[in-house]
């Protein structure tokens, strides 16, 4: 890798420009091809038959009835499913989840695939799957998080510590002047990207082409190749557009592999698309939580002790434990702090990461508890948060690599109009007689980074192609990464083409953990830097170059040319032409800086302000204004970053007020498994959502100074909305999402207002 080239091109370059997204035109014209849009010749349609029970066995199928449906070609059951090279229940890698691939007749959750019906038409396959009518031997299923026996898992999340402590929380609580202890509940939630999981699988001998949405094509390739016993490079995964993932497409799910196996079984291309109802089954969800916050407060308003304990649910057969308490180690200064978890096992599908895994639910509980503490002390909730600003990371004592939270408080409060907010709840109302409340929450999300590789090719015409298996999942990666590539190569944006979304390209890491721009971008930056170094070596060694003899160290690339500090320049194309080269290529890799990460805490921060209006008769809540101010290091593309932040804030609102997957205790199935009954916000629910970007520079987090904006918007927002509801009504609801009847029936003075 070259030393000495400028880490970032000069001002005026591509990074930082609010350009429109590269994939915009393809998406507004309907030309963007998602997996389910593919129709290879000879295509058959496969439909999953899901289990209707949550625990037990399948005892029989009506195969004859299914096959009697005209157009049904085959039924895949455990009896004839093509063999696998690996047990789908084997833990073959540190982070791998068990899959249900018809390995036996055992049912471990409702919605588990029990068979696949393949037909000439979708209509035939769907009807065949219905006619299969599995018979079951059902066993009692447990789906209630409060009814199961808890235990302490070894780790939470994807390998995070289950408990962390700094200081003696119990001692600090015992001696604190004020104590606040509260319990909060959050519901199970389902990702529900608008695009259901889909797979179009085409076998050619022992090579496999798979069109399927993925947030991590390299991981999917490894997992699928391992299960099938194929060399990874025989599995070609294409995922140019992902119609929303939010974590549900971070790991290959069982149904995607079943589509591939169905294609193998029938020897023809197969398309398998999950129904919306099936999106509530085998592709993961956010675990429900029960969280207890204990705070010890000094008379001066400082937090002496903060303890956050979370109980989370997981499946009986695999381990994913929502790290709901973990975030509390990093938000507010406290004399002593601890975060702990326990878990229960239920007859449900294994939960998985879902936008802000742990942070979303944990932030909701923490921000409510902080508000309740402020109320206990009679302090303004923003003043209380400022007073307890964490100058270093509380759980570790490490300094932050950068932290512009105070500026976020300032910017958000000013835009929102926080000043003058009355302290007492139920103080405000609007002209329609609705109760109005204002709430705040602090947003925080760790700045993660993973490993990635990228390849850059500069052609004789001065245009470049940058390739890596990155993921455009709607977050704007394709655009932001091309901006980074242009600057790394010193080229105008128009000269750079980005190829992503396929497993044949260098492994760019997953689009997860708000890390993709940082991770993949750093790899592109490294590849570009290496390529520029090669170009510089060619130029400085070439007597015909204006830069002949100039040291590499003083060169930089911009506007399609190499530049010396003294005004001399040599265009990229000229360097290649004189060298007689058709193209040059360079590779780059990126990985987190272990030393910097050991010495510093790294996180994006923000402040979210919510205004709600509550119908005093009905308890109906409308979030009339939502303003967030976020500092997330360097912003590669402000237009797209704002969209990400606004989207996250809407998820936060939804977490607080809308979404709950409701398990039917009688059947163990999710009772509201459709988009009519599982409530996600609609246009009418969102009158005003705005995200402000607060400047922040960070030289430690990664070479680009990028922190990530994908998930932070959820944090802070959910709590801000809940706190605003309390401020409007004086009623503190601690079970989320807030049910309007809980609010309506608890609201003081409801009866009095009844004589309109």
């Amino acid at each position: 890798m070259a030393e000495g080239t400028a880490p970032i091109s000069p001002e005026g370059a591509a990074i930082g420009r609010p350009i429109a997204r590269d994939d915009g035109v393809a998406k507004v014209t309907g030309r963007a091809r998602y997996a389910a849009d593919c129709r290879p010749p000879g295509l058959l349609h496969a439909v999953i038959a899901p289990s209707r029970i949550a625990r037990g066995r399948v005892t029989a199928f009506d195969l004859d009835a299914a096959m009697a449906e005209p157009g049904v070609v085959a039924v895949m059951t455990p009896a004839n499913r093509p063999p696998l090279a690996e047990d789908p229940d084997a833990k073959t890698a540190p982070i791998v989840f068990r899959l249900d691939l018809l390995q036996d007749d055992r049912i471990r959750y409702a919605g588990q695939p029990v068979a696949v019906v393949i037909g000439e038409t979708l209509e035939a396959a769907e009807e065949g799957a219905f006619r299969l009518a599995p018979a079951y031997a059902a066993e009692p299923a447990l789906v209630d998080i409060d009814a199961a026996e808890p235990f302490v898992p070894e780790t939470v999340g994807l390998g995070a510590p289950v408990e962390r402590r700094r200081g003696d929380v119990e001692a600090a609580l015992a001696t604190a002047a004020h104590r606040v202890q509260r319990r909060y509940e959050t519901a199970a939630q389902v990702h529900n990207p608008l695009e259901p999981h889909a797979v179009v699988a085409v076998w050619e001998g022992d090579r496999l082409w798979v069109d399927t949405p993925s947030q991590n094509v390299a991981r999917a390739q490894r997992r699928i190749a391992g299960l099938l016993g194929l060399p990874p490079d025989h599995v070609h995964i294409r995922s140019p557009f992902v119609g929303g993932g939010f974590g549900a497409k971070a790991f290959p799910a069982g149904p995607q592999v079943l589509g591939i196996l169905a294609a193998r079984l029938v020897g023809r291309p197969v398309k398998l698309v999950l129904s919306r109802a099936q999106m509530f089954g085998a592709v993961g969800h956010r675990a429900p939580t029960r969280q207890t916050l204990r705070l010890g407060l000094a008379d001066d308003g400082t937090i002496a002790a903060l303890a956050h304990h979370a109980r989370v649910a997981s499946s009986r057969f695999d381990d994913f434990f929502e790290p709901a308490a973990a975030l509390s180690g990093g938000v507010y200064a406290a004399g002593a702090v601890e975060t702990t978890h326990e878990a229960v096992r239920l007859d449900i599908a294994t939960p998985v990461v879902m936008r802000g895994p742990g942070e979303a639910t944990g932030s909701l509980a923490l921000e409510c508890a902080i508000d309740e503490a402020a109320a206990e002390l009679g302090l303004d909730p923003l003043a209380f948060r400022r007073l307890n600003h964490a100058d270093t990371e509380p759980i570790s004592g490490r300094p932050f690599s950068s932290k512009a939270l105070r500026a976020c408080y300032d910017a958000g409060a000013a835009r929102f109009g926080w000043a003058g907010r009355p302290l007492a709840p139920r103080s405000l109302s609007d002209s329609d007689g609705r109760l109005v409340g204002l709430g705040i929450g602090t947003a925080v999300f760790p700045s993660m980074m993973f490993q990635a590789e990228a390849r850059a090719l500069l052609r004789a015409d001065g245009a470049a192609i940058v390739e890596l298996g990155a993921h455009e999942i709607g977050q704007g990666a394709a655009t932001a990464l091309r901006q980074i590539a242009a600057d790394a190569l010193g080229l105008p944006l128009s000269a750079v083409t980005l190829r992503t979304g396929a497993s044949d390209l260098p492994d760019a890491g997953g689009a997860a953990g708000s890390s993709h721009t940082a991770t993949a971008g750093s790899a592109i930056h490294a590849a570009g830097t290496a390529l520029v170094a090669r170009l510089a070596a060619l130029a400085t060694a070439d007597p015909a170059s204006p830069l002949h003899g100039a040291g590499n160290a003083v060169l930089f690339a911009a506007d399609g040319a190499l530049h010396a500090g003294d005004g001399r320049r040599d265009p990229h194309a000229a360097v290649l032409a004189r060298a007689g080269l058709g193209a040059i290529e360079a590779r780059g890799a990126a990985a987190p800086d272990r030393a910097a990460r050991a010495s510093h805490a790294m996180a994006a921060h923000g402040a979210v302000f919510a205004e709600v209006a509550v119908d005093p008769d009905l308890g109906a809540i409308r979030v009339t204004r939502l303003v967030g101010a976020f500092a997330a290091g360097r912003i590669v593309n402000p237009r797209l970053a704002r969209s990400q932040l606004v989207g996250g804030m809407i998820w936060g609102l939804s977490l607080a007020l809308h979404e709950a997957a409701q398990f039917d205790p009688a059947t163990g199935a999710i009772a509201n498994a459709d988009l009519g009954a599982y409530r996600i916000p609609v246009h009418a629910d969102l009158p005003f959502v705005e995200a402000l970007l607060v400047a922040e520079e960070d030289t430690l987090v990664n070479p680009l100074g990028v922190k990530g904006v994908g998930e932070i918007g959820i944090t802070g927002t959910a709590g801000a909305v809940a706190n605003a509801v309390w401020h409007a009504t004086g009623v503190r609801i601690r079970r989320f999402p807030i049910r309007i009847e809980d609010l309506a029936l608890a609201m003081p003075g409801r009866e009095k207002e009844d004589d309109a």
Partner: protein
Amino acid sequence: MADLPEPLPVQSAAPEAAEASIIGLTLNGVTRVVPLDDPRVTLLDLLRERLGLSGAKKGCDRGQCGACTVLLDGRRVNACLVLAVTLDGAAVETIEGLGGGGALHPLQAAFVEHDALQCGFCTPGQIMSALGLLAEEGNDPDPERIRAGMSGNLCRCGAHPAIVAAIRAVIGAGDRSEMPE
């Protein structure tokens, strides 16, 4: 790979020769004669699986998400809830028919400009719904009316404020919704 079995022989293809019907419809301004082998086929599956028009998306197949919104005789419908066989003589307009000569329709351009999309899966439905909204209800720029009129079109990424801003921009009502008092 040796341990994978040989593919099964595929049952002879033709779904029982259901008496095929033929419908004539105008699709994006072009008259088409479409043979239908199965009355169960919805307009959405006709477009996507038989006519190769995959712009309309299947997000729920129950009329609950709006991703399959198209115009039927000039009005918005969920294509997943319309049987193709009922469409003899109808006019259907899909996202593929919008714009012309390589130019974007103003709504399409406004969606790009306002970043009124993220993953893009709901986008063709949002745009067709916005088109229907303007046709059905006129150019009333009241954002609350637009929000109500677009609420049948779900978006999971959270592009809603930008979508409303894009529609208002096309109406000529300015491109930012002012913060309410």
